[in-house]
């Protein structure tokens, strides 16, 4: 290995190759290694005397560190979507008002939404009363009586 003179370019080439693999085989595995390769290349560019083993060490540690850093970042900056309720069927009903088709007795009743019937729980009230959905727990709505 000693014969090969490693220069920073090699790391950048590796970073691009890894990025290419990531594009062709999406799985978000190689992206981090590409980042690590890029940074290792920069380190080598700044400190050309870094030994090969040290470079590998830096690359390995950075590969995993970039994942951890990204996780921290996402924790603070959640991703935005224009459909936050996609695939969350129950959550779409929160805040809406419905009529009870079955009285809430012992905390259990039913409402009709669209063409389906949902179970609700809340304080007892008679059939036909208006209730507002305040939360969803699994397949059951938590409701509040409104006047």
């Amino acid at each position, binding site marked *: *290995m000693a014969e090969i003179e490693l220069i920073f370019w090699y790391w950048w080439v590796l970073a691009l190759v890894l990025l290419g693999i990531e594009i062709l085989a*999406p*799985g*978000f*595995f190689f992206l*981090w*290694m590409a980042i690590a390769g890029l940074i290792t290349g920069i380190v080598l560019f700044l400190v050309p005397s870094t030994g*090969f*083993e040290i470079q*590998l*060490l830096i*690359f*390995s*540690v950075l*590969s*995993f560190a970039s*994942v*951890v850093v*990204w*996780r921290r970042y*996402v924790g603070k900056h959640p*991703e935005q979507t224009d459909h936050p309720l*996609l*695939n969350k*069927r*129950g959550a779409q009903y929160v805040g809406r008002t419905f009529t009870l088709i079955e009285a809430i007795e012992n905390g259990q009743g039913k409402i009709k939404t669209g*063409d*389906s*019937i*949902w*179970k609700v729980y809340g304080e007892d009230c008679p059939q036909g009363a208006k209730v507002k959905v305040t939360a*969803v727990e*699994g*397949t*059951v709505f938590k409701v509040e009586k409104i006047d």
Partner: protein
Amino acid sequence: MTGFGIFVTALLIFAVLMVIMSVKSVPQGMEYTVERFGRYTGTLTPGLNIIVPIIDRIGRKLNVMEQVLDVPSQEVITKDNAMVRVDGVVFYQIMDSPKAAYEVNNLDHAIVNLVMTNIRTVMGSMDLDELLSRRDDINAKLLSVVDDATTPWGIKVTRIEIKDIEPPRDLVESMARQMKAEREKRAAILEAEGHKQAEILRADGEKQAAILDAEGRRESAFRDAEARERLAEAEARATTMVSEAIAKGDIQAINYFVAQKYVESLKEVAAADNSKVVLMPLEASSVIGALGGITELAKEAMAKREK
């Protein structure tokens, strides 16, 4: 290669494995459960997720989109003992991933079996006619029962539809015959009713005509009678007037009129060209008598003049 070199190479391989194990990207519409040492700890939502490698593992991969299941065709015996083949579809959606993953084993199989047994229960309590005409009721009843039963599994059954209800072939044939007979019966009744109406109308018309005719005759009889009455009245008046005139004047004046009329009619009889036979009245003498009366009149007139 130095020991440090081997260590670094091993570290590189380890790091790559760590990255591959910790990065989990969940596509939209799916949810993954995470198990730490085999025990459920959380759910991964769509997007890029990081789990702690080695101790965390992905448990189940659940599809949280609405899904459709075919309910295989089965035989159902209705309340009135007809054997029908029924199949359907169920739409459901996983609302609570951990429950769907761990509260039930083989979710699809469980749902299909639940729906099949409930189809038998609901349809078995109905007559064949009801079965065929009240699908909406059946669907609603099934939905309510199945949804209640599947709540603990964290899924929402949004819709159950009975696709096909297929009664046995001979039953279908007799149903067709029954329908045809029913229509024929209605047609026959309608035809008979039409006849009846027509006859009634015709008879009614004849009756009206007869009544009008009779009324006409009655009216004309009344008027005839009236006319005769008036004629008689006029005659009576005329007679009265004549007799009054006679009472005032001479009786012989009558003889004058009668004789005049008599002679006139004799002239007419003589003028008739188809008969040359002149019939003299039997009482010709009385006509002569009348002439005698005229003589008397003349004598009286003469006597008055001589005075």
